């Protein structure tokens, strides 16, 4: 009862916060947008290149998304990035055909690349060929190739129509295409050129990209969307030190922080030092999770894996790391922000999610004892994690929790440069990992992290029967029916201890009130950086 009341109050406060923020924004929003001005946002690190298709971090999306357009995009004015908020961009309309196995886009006429050449259906084909590795010219890295495995062919029908032929119906394809990770590339610029001198159709052109120093975008005066962009440009000094960046924001040298870089602790400082700043704090669709190598004895034993899942006290993780502001859920982002998250009752019925931690741990100890472990015979294991605070801190808490069930963990810190290679080779026993999702969509999450053949399935979990359900949900067009299928899959993944999700992290973005028309999504952090609707009320 107490919990429910607290949740009610929390929701009420959150709603009040949103209302206050909206009320504060209302006068500016009601005004006629002003033209001109340079938006200043810091860039948190040096992006490896300007080619979004080669990036696997929004350190590439955020600075460069304004250079490009997608076929479709999420409406930046809406709260969530979901099916309901997909709007046309380079495609004016789309239609499913062939029983859901073809998707035809009608393209916007008169669109030009930054170098003046016309955008046509051939460019759409080139983009897919490049991402699918079908062209001789290869991307240096191609992190999302597997997302488009279902696209068998891309067929241009003249200059302004293109059809995607699919292996099976996949309604989620539209979600993937709306992501900030899916811009259209020109046929006439090679992959290397797109890394250093990118050409897009977007509202801004690249003016300057000085490594480790500055990224400057300038207004595309020939932009095909009438009246856009409002800004003359975007200036992004690369500031790697977060303290310096936040001081620059407080002093007014910056208009906008780098997305999701504001932690709860930093937010407290900003509230006092820049009280007028507008801040969005919410889920970023990045989960902290426990990874267990199920090929490595003794963790090939399902009882031990289950015992580890039962030892987790998610509330303690949340309190210590996120001051209680993170969310607890399964694989999919929890409700209310997440579209696909399991209902609370269902979640709490899963082993390890129930509120009685003592009972969970008692059950875990019984499982351990069944296999000969106990106070006199403890299991020693290395807990591997990446050498980044966001990984290290929860890993330390995990070690503490595992102690309760006769497991003595020793922290093994792994440098970033070798972390993924190590876990992909399964050269670890137990690890603490973070998993990010560019869109709130089951296809991306399930196929990428739990499919038997996925490179990113680092725990070796493989359940062919469940994988059939992945495909079934992917083909389902009835949203409510699909949700129930997704919940069932998610429940099964948690019961199987495939990759126990500990927390879904929350973090924030702040901007000064002069910045109008910018809004972060509440369920994703990769898609809102076109900046074409943003204007400065100075």
């Amino acid at each position, binding site marked *: 009862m107490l919990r429910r009341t607290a949740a009610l109050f929390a929701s009420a406060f959150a709603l009040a916060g949103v209302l206050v923020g909206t009320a504060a924004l209302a006068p500016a929003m009601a005004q006629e947008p002003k033209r001109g001005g340079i938006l200043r946002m810091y860039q948190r690190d040096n992006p*490896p290149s300007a080619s979004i298709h080669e990036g696997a971090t929004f350190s590439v999306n955020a600075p460069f998304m304004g250079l490009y357009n997608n076929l479709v995009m999420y409406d930046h004015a809406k709260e969530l990035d979901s099916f309901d908020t997909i709007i046309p961009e380079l495609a004016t309309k789309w239609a499913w055909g062939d029983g859901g196995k073809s998707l035809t886009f009608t393209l916007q006429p008169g669109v030009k690349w930054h170098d003046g050449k016309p955008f046509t259906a051939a460019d759409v084909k080139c983009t897919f060929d490049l991402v699918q590795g079908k062209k001789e010219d290869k991307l240096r890295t191609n992190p999302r190739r597997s997302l488009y495995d279902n696209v068998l062919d891309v067929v241009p029908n003249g200059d302004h129509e293109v059809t995607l032929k699919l292996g099976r119906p996949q309604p989620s394809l539209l979600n993937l295409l709306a992501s900030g990770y899916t811009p259209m590339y020109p046929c006439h610029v090679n992959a*290397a050129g797109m890394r250093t001198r990118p050409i897009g159709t977007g509202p801004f052109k690249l003016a300057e990209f*000085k490594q480790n120093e500055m990224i400057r975008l300038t207004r595309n005066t020939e932009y095909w969307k009438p009246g856009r962009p409002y800004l003359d440009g975007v200036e992004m*000094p690369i500031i790697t030190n977060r303290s*310096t960046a936040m001081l620059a924001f407080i*002093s007014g040298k910056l208009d906008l922080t780098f997305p999701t870089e504001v932690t709860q602790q930093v937010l407290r400082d900003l509230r006092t030092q820049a009280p007028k700043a507008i801040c969005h704090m919410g889920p970023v669709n990045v989960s902290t999770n426990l990874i267990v190598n199920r090929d490595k004895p003794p963790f090939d034993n399902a009882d031990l894996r289950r015992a580890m899942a039962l030892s987790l006290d998610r509330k303690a993780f949340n309190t210590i790391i996120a001051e209680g502001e993170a969310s607890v859920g399964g694989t999919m982002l929890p409700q209310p922000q997440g579209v696909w998250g399991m209902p609370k009752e269902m979640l709490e019925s899963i082993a390890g999610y129930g509120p009685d931690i003592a009972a969970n741990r008692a059950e875990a100890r019984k499982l351990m004892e069944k296999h000969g472990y106990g106070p006199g015979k403890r299991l020693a294991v290395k807990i591997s994690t990446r050498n980044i605070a966001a990984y290290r801190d929860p890993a330390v808490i995990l070690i503490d929790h595992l102690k309760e069930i006769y497991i003595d963990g020793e922290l093994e810190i792994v440098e970033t*440069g070798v972390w993924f290679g190590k876990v992909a080779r399964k050269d670890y026993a137990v690890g603490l990992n973070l998993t990010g999702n560019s869109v709130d969509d089951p296809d991306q999450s399930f196929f990428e992290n739990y499919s038997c053949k996925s490179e990113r399935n680092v725990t070796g979990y493989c359940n062919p029967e469940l994988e059939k359900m992945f495909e079934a949900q992917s083909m389902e067009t009835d949203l409510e029916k699909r949700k129930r299928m997704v919940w069932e899959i998610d429940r099964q993944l948690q019961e199987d201890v495939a990759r126990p999700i500990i927390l879904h992290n929350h973090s924030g973005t702040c901007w000064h009130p002069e910045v109008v028309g910018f809004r972060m999504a509440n369920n994703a952090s990769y898609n809102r950086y076109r900046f074409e609707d943003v204007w400065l009320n100075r």
Partner: protein
Amino acid sequence: MGAYLVRRFGLMLLTLFGISVIIFTLLRIVPGNIVDILFDSAGMVDPAEKQRIARELGLDLSLPQQYVAWISGILRGDLGYSYVSEKPALEEIAPRIPITAKLAVLALVFSVLIGVPLGVISAVRQNTLTDYALRVLSLSGLSLPSFWLGLLVLMAFVSWFDTLPIYSDRITGFWAQLALFSVPAAAVGFRSSALVMRLTRSSMLEVLRQDYIRTARAKGATRQSVNYRHALRNALLPVVTVIGIEAAFLIGGLIVTETVFNIPGVARFLVEAIRARDYPIVQNLVMLIAVVVVVVNFVVDMLYAVLDPRIKYGG
């Protein structure tokens, strides 16, 4: 003198060769290379793809082949290509050198202009309130980490002046740039000035007790003349040595200062390049720093002869 110079020059080349081998080897010992990092961040493990990129970057060659390619490139003036930006390494490094040079020179000037006079004052007013205050100041300079001091300075600027003295490439002109660099230079030079101050003080105290100083005073030389003409010049020898060494150590302080003040200089760039295992950038930058250190040491050795006529080289 000529023979000495030739010998010193030969030794300098030998030192640089040794450094080149060490840095080349150390970089390859560190786990992970640029391909690992690229693939790691993209979540890819396909060995064939990895091999293709490694081949593209010349990482499939044997280590001796890679070393020879690098050194022969340097001799031809070709520093190779940055793996990250895919631009010539020289194009990436060259614009950053003047930025760091300005900061380093200003920091050194700050440390000498502050450290030497305060060291002298502290010595000639030994065991007075001024001496105690200056000693506390110098101790704090040695104890405060430069990242903390830098952040403190930035916070003070935001709180008191509502501005932030961080780098901007839009600031041009001598005086504007001097103002831009003076704050970070003071932050990084504070530690060196403290060291110089303490050393000047102890060196001065030692010299002030010498017989020839007593003689100078007995002959009626003024206090100013004794302190600055007779004592300081002789006390400066160890100070100059330390300043030379500090010039080398400064690069360590600059890494932090350039990060905190967001200055796109060589030192910060080096750290980023190491993180990305951008071998051409790291190797060439470390060699550049090594050349600077070796040359500074050589200049310091030559300065000994200027300061103390009794010192002769090659005789």
